């Protein structure tokens, strides 16, 4: 901070000059360091248009300490020459002089002097020329006078190499009066204080302007995970639509509930080691509702309920195998079975969002576990049109309005439909979910009334989240390799905007 004294003297000086002044000169005339003036200029600049300062920089050549000595007393070699009398001088004596060593070699190379090594009493030095012309000194004198421009580059560099001359950059401001020039400056306050409010002194004070370009101070806070933020929104949507949440807190499931109860045959590829995680401990489930299990066995192996069945040898051991559930539909099956055990059927709307597991090959968009979103509606006389209508409402809440449906295959739904939405960015239809009507072979053995239809749909939570937050690698989103900065920076989740 420049002190007010200097600032005011400086301003008085500027007031007197017309057309402006150089900060260097002002500093010299005021007898202060140039730094002080620069400080004053900077602080005045923040006050508004008191002065205007134009930055100038100039380079000029200056003599070094050694250069100044030479300019005054001559170059070392000249001084060597001058100190040698006509009768010569013993070399040892010359070397005693302060400039002796340096000047000697230079004078030798200039062929101004010679050494007689065979002279009595040791080597002796003689002049070889009558007089000399001390060019170095002349050049330096030229530079000292400020006429360095008259030296050519080569000469300057030679002198620079000899550390006699140095190039210095001088930066200064060209200062002129500003529109609101004044010789007095009131010190500006930085912040409003309780004292100012109490005394009312804020009314008289001027305040330093804020730099609105700068960023504010980041608040100290915790953050929710983006995937969980999206999950919260999906839960919200389901709740708004009157869907009740299913208890999906059971990652371990028996093959029976995960596959058999859904009329998924025991040889189905999804039940392969390559697709499903099986358990070695506890490897088997032991309790099943046995009458229901018998009906499931029958519909698989022999058919019934109007079905041909799959006509294969259904094995209990296969149904008993414990797995990590491959879909939350296993829970839907349990819920629907439970619903069927009610004395009187009541319509239900269920949803769940939870983890499922697949023993699949992993890549940038696939992990061994992901979150499945599932919705189920069970009521009398639901139609395929109803399923499309519910899907339309659901996706509208996600901000997706253009939908179309593709026939698909799923072992436990018939009809099955893949849901496609038109992606404005990609300019094409992309798959956003799967849906269908549960097969009678699944529902009737549970004991649900024959005219009850159950419609359902599912999608992954990760995909919409990756699209929403622009994440390409799923590992940056889920799991320990998450980028916490991304978590800190992620905006709130509004799916419909």
């Amino acid at each position, binding site marked *: 901070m420049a002190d007010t004294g200097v600032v005011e003297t400086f301003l008085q000086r500027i007031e007197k000059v017309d057309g402006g002044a150089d900060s260097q000169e002002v500093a010299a005339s005021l007898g202060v360091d140039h730094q002080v003036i620069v400080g004053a200029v900077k602080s005045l600049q923040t006050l508004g248009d008191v002065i205007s300062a134009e930055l100038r920089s100039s380079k000029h050549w200056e003599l070094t300490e050694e250069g100044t000595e030479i300019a005054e007393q001559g170059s070392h070699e000249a001084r060597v020459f001058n100190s040698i009398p006509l009768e010569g001088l013993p070399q040892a004596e010359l070397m005693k002089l302060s400039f002796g060593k340096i000047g000697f070699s230079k004078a030798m190379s200039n062929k101004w002097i010679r050494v007689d090594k065979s002279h009595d009493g040791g080597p002796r030095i003689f002049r070889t020329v009558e007089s000399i012309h001390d060019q170095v000194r002349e050049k330096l004198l030229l530079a000292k006078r400020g006429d360095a421009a008259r030296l050519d580059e080569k000469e300057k560099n030679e002198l620079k190499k000899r550390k006699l001359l140095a190039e210095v950059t001088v930066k200064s401001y060209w200062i002129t009066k500003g529109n609101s020039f004044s010789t007095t400056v009131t010190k500006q306050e930085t912040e409003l204080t309780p004292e100012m409010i109490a005394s009312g002194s804020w009314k008289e004070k001027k305040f330093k302007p804020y730099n609105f370009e700068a960023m504010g101070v980041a608040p100290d806070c915790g953050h929710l995970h983006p995937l969980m933020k999206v999950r919260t929104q999906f839960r919200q949507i389901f*709740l708004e639509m009157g869907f*009740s949440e299913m208890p999906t807190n059971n990652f371990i499931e028996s093959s029976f509930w995960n596959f058999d109860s859904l009329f998924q045959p025991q040889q189905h590829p999804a039940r392969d080691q390559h697709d499903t995680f099986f358990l070695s401990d506890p490897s088997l489930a032991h309790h099943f509702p046995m009458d229901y299990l018998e009906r499931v066995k029958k519909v698989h192996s022999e058919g019934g309920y109007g079905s041909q069945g799959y006509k294969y040898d259904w094995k209990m051991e296969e149904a008993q195998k414990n797995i990590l559930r491959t879909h939350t539909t296993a829970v839907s099956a349990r819920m629907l079975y439970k619903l069927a055990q009610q004395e009187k059927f009541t319509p239900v709307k269920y949803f769940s969002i939870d983890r499922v597991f697949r*023993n699949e090959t992993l890549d940038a968009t696939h992990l*061994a576990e992901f979150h499945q979103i599932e919705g189920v509606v069970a009521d009398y006389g639901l139609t*395929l049109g109803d399923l499309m*209508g519910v899907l339309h409402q659901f996706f509208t809440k996600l901000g997706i309005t253009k939908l179309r449906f593709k026939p698909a295959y799923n072992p436990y739904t018939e009809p099955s439909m893949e849901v496609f939405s038109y992606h404005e960015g990609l300019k094409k239809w992309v798959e956003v979910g799967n849906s269908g009507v549960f097969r009678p072979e699944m529902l009737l053995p549970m004991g649900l009334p024959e005219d009850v239809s159950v419609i359902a749909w599912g999608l992954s939570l990760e995909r919409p989240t990756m699209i929403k937050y622009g994440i390409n690698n799923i590992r940056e989103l889920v799991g320990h390799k*998450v980028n916490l900065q991304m978590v800190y920076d992620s905006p709130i989740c509004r799916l419909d905007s």
Partner: protein
Amino acid sequence: MPTVGVKRDFLFKALGRTYTDEEFDELCFEFGLELDEITSEREIISKEQGDSKASDASDVILYKIDVPANRYDLLCLEGLVRGLQVFKNKLEAPRYRRLSPDSGESQRLIITKETAAVRPHAVAAVLRNITFTQERYDSFIELQEKLHQNICRKRSLVAIGTHDLDTISGPFTYTAKAPGDICFRPLNQTKEYTATQLMSLYKTDSHLRHYLPIIEDKPVYPVIYDSNDIVLSMPPIINGDHSKISLKTKNVFIECTATDLTKAKIVLDMIVTMFSEYCAQPFTVEQAEVVYPDGKTCIYPELAYRKEKLSGEFINKKVGIRESTERIAQLLTRMCLLSQPTGVGDEIEVEIPPTRPDVIHACDIMEDAAIAYGFNNITRTTPHTYTVANQFPLNKLTELLRQDLAAAGFTEALNFALCSQEDIADKLGKKISETRAIHISNPKTAEFQVARTTLLPGLLKTIAANRKMPLPLKLFEISDVVLKDESKDVGARNSRRFCAIYYNKTPGFEVIHGLLDRTMQLLEVKAARGEGYHIQAADDSTFFPGRCAEIFVRGTSVGRLGVLHPDVIGRFELTMPCSALEMDLEPFLGHTAEILLTHDVPMQETFKHPFPALSQSQPALPSRLPSTKTVLGDLSSHAGLKALNDFLADRSYIEGFTVSQADAAVFDAIPSPPSQAFCHLRRWYSHIKSFHTERARLPSARSQFVLPPTPPASPNNNSEDDIDLFGSDDDEESAEAARIREQRLSEYASKKPALVAKSSILLDVKPWDNETDMAKMEECVRSVAMEGLLWGQSKLVPVGYGIKKLQIGCVVEDDKVGTDLLEEAITGFEEYVQSVDVAAFNKI
């Protein structure tokens, strides 16, 4: 979903017209197919093996079409074309017929009883007078391969063999022999091998080795001979070379051996229906007789047409359309399901051809009607199902808690439920046998060996992956772990956990402890023994000795908190001290758990929460605890009372400016009214006594002042107490160990370990002007080196007029580096630096 590759131009030729890619894509979409990729052989090879290999390959355009997994009739060009042509009303579905041979003598395949041990079923048929071209031949081979990969489940259920009938002579025998006794020249080989030799020969065959395990361990291998003992095939591995088919083959003998007869019949039907098109008499198949070991004879292929009757109303109601019976019959006919109204009401008779084994129920017929009608022509309606939504109570609690934990300054992490054994055991200083973890039998990598039994390793790994982030790192996760539980139908259950971690230069036990207090506040549990919560020193190998406490809620352990053991920190590749908290959330469900019961699913026992519900909790009774030990010392001793007296000299209350449970607790710890000598203590004592009647309503304490009376007795480890976060044993401890721990805990409360005083400084370094080389300037600044000085991150901040200042952080040891020293050193670079200011100065 199987993908079928067809040559585009052949497809269009067969369809009788050309389509643009978009048009064909549209047609596929409507029919339930997906045009997955448009490519060429050259493109495929160049993608897989590089451009050089691809130069000779054909660049005929290929369509890769995804076919639904149950539509075996669409797995080849012939089937696709037939399906689409019928769908577009350009063709009537052909009628497939089984004929007896002109000679009257059918080919016979005799099954011997030996096959029962390995592959008991076989079916067969003959395609007579067929004409192959290269394309037809390729498609014929390709279809077999597709069937093998899909319905045949990689040949384990069914294996197909096709033979040039003119090279062999019936009757054929399907038998099983010891591998050493089977000897023949297999397809595309020049010499004969025994079956044993073949199995080792094909060990390295990229294609065939996958099928070896199907019969490898069997005592006998299946084999088919003709009447001259020529080997037709050794299913499911390889055919004999003798009977191989070629472009010139006229009569094809097809055999399918199987472990699943239903699928074998379907596979045989598929092959003959698809390729009988090229027979002299199209769509006819010559029958073959299969003779079983019991003498029974069956005629194949079955080519069964099944008739179903259903009502038009059924279809209208299920799909949500209103179409006439006639129109519905037409829709079904377009899906190769020949249908007509019977005239009885709205009854429709539907004939399901042998090509559609996927139609097993009326709902499959209904779907076909919907596809033919066009899914996207169906009116979208809203069902009038009235329901009231309920949240799953555990998730509701989780959602609410998450929000407030983030508000408490912790950031949510989301980690995998699966991990390695090492993560949950070795790395935490535990044995895997102690963890109650479930084990996965077929993990592809060590990352999926077990389901996690604790959330802690995930959070530690998250920190390890984010070491670059500024400290402190404060993370939490609320998620499920999985534990073995005999009482469940599957022998395991989830448990909802809350875990939080604090990672910084100091352990920050007080931060984690504070978070526990906050959490309990959110969960409406008071800090008190008995009906509230308290923590108590515990031993746990995951934690630093003496720095672990167990959390008790209403007398039962719910989890632990503490400073992690340096070995644990090291095993997760971390370098800083770290404290953590993990606890079970389910005990806090309270009475809302009642709703859970109505949602509970069959065979999952109701969750027995180990605590009385909140509403049932006992009225808070002040219980005079026997303990006289406090953080200020033993209050039964003179020294302890003196310390408390001194403490109260300038304080009104134990904690803060209002009376709280802390006062009540310390009050209780004083055995008898203090003597006159302790004037401050006496003042406080009588004041607190006056709260006698309302002490139950006093606000809870923020920290624990009264220490456990006796060495913490091991909590009753009965079957109900199934919360075992870190799997430690709860052995009786010696009085000495307890004393040491208590001492340490009181040290925790009273003083912090001495640290080298350090400060973090943020400097603003201003250049002369906007032309100053800022990079050079930074280089100069960073070149300043002093003992106890560590440069940190920097950035350029605009200050106006195009000038930027360098903002650079550093950490200094206060004793060694002063700010003036720093400023002096930096202003030394006067060529660049105009001034240096301290923008921020913080004690670490």
